[in-house]
């Protein structure tokens, strides 16, 4: 049963919590699939937010430091039911995962000495390195169009060198990068850059 997307239907707190538990904390793959699932449920199926409200929440989630997905969920919860909605959304989306992470970490500590488990962990740890590499690529990819490729390459290379070669603290590197972003505008500025689809940006 699809609701008309109007953004006028306000949920009950328990329904809001149920949606965020189901789609926010039980979807594998991080921000992109979770955002897509939440859009389908909150905008298209239930009509709690209209597409523009959803887009604003998403954009502000991207502007907020920390894990973008959590800020995005807080923004949606706040837009729907103010403080109670924001808190419910945040707890619903983060608590089940936290419990699972603690259980898995305990299991890792318990079993990592077992010879069979050691082989399994060896392979899985090697894949973790690949996962970090893929995350780097997914972060950079939306900024590699012709307009921004040169600046992106300079900032990435500079950041790698600053940390790996010159051992600058990461916070300082980020501060320098912000300065570069302030001074070196992309070739599309001062026009607004094209709006990145949420399917392009990791969380």
């Amino acid at each position, binding site marked *: 049963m699809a609701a008309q997307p109007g953004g006028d239907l306000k949920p009950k707190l328990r329904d809001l919590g149920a949606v965020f538990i189901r789609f926010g904390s039980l979807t594998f793959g991080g921000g992109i699939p979770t955002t897509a699932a939440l859009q389908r449920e909150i905008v298209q199926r239930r009509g709690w937010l209209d597409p523009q409200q959803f887009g604003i929440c998403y954009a502000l989630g991207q502007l907020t430091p*920390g894990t973008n997905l959590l800020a995005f969920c*807080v923004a949606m919860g*706040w837009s729907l039911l103010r403080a109670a909605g924001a808190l419910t959304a945040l707890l619903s989306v983060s608590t089940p995962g936290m419990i699972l992470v603690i259980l898995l970490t305990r299991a890792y500590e318990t079993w990592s000495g077992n010879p069979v488990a050691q082989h399994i962990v060896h392979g899985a740890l*090697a894949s973790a390195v690949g996962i970090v590499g893929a995350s780097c690529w997914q972060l950079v990819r939306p*900024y590699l169009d012709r307009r921004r490729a040169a600046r992106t390459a300079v900032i990435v290379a500079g950041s790698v060198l600053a940390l790996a070669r010159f051992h600058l603290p990461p916070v300082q590197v980020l501060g320098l990068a*912000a300065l570069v972003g302030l001074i070196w*505008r992309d070739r599309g500025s001062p026009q607004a850059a094209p709006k990145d689809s949420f399917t392009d940006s990791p969380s």
Partner: protein
Amino acid sequence: MNVFILYLVLLKATVTSFSGLASLPIIRDELVVKRAVLTDHQLNAAVLVGRSTPGPIGLYIVSVGYFAAGTPGAAAGWLALITPAFLVIPLLHYLGRSTEHPRIKNVLEAVVVSSAGLMLATSIPLAQDAVTGALPLIIAAASCLTLIATPLDTIWVILGSAALSLAASELTPFR
């Protein structure tokens, strides 16, 4: 390690990053390099655990907290993870529909791109710990390429890597 200090350290990492794993360089710098309460091996394991569970990628910080200070540390990690999310409320209130300002976008883009560079630099010592032979190298490269080139979920990549490593150990026990 004092749990409140751990919370502040992890909060510093989350509040200065703009995506799930982008906090990794600061966490490594603070907890592995400066304070030595975590090893590269544990940090790698935390990333692995975080990616093996559903929900936000940043949940790996809970595992980092657990390795550093047990269950209270995990709680500190969780609090450090969720605290910055509240910053979106004043943004929603004051910025509202003017989020497309080019100058703000430029600065944020530069910070996000720099985070990727920092992650890349941080992955070097992690790789030195985890990639100790030909098979782990193949697994790491294949995992990276699979995640970039296919829509396959991370959990299947991790399970496949674990299965491959186990199968290889059965075939060559003296590897």
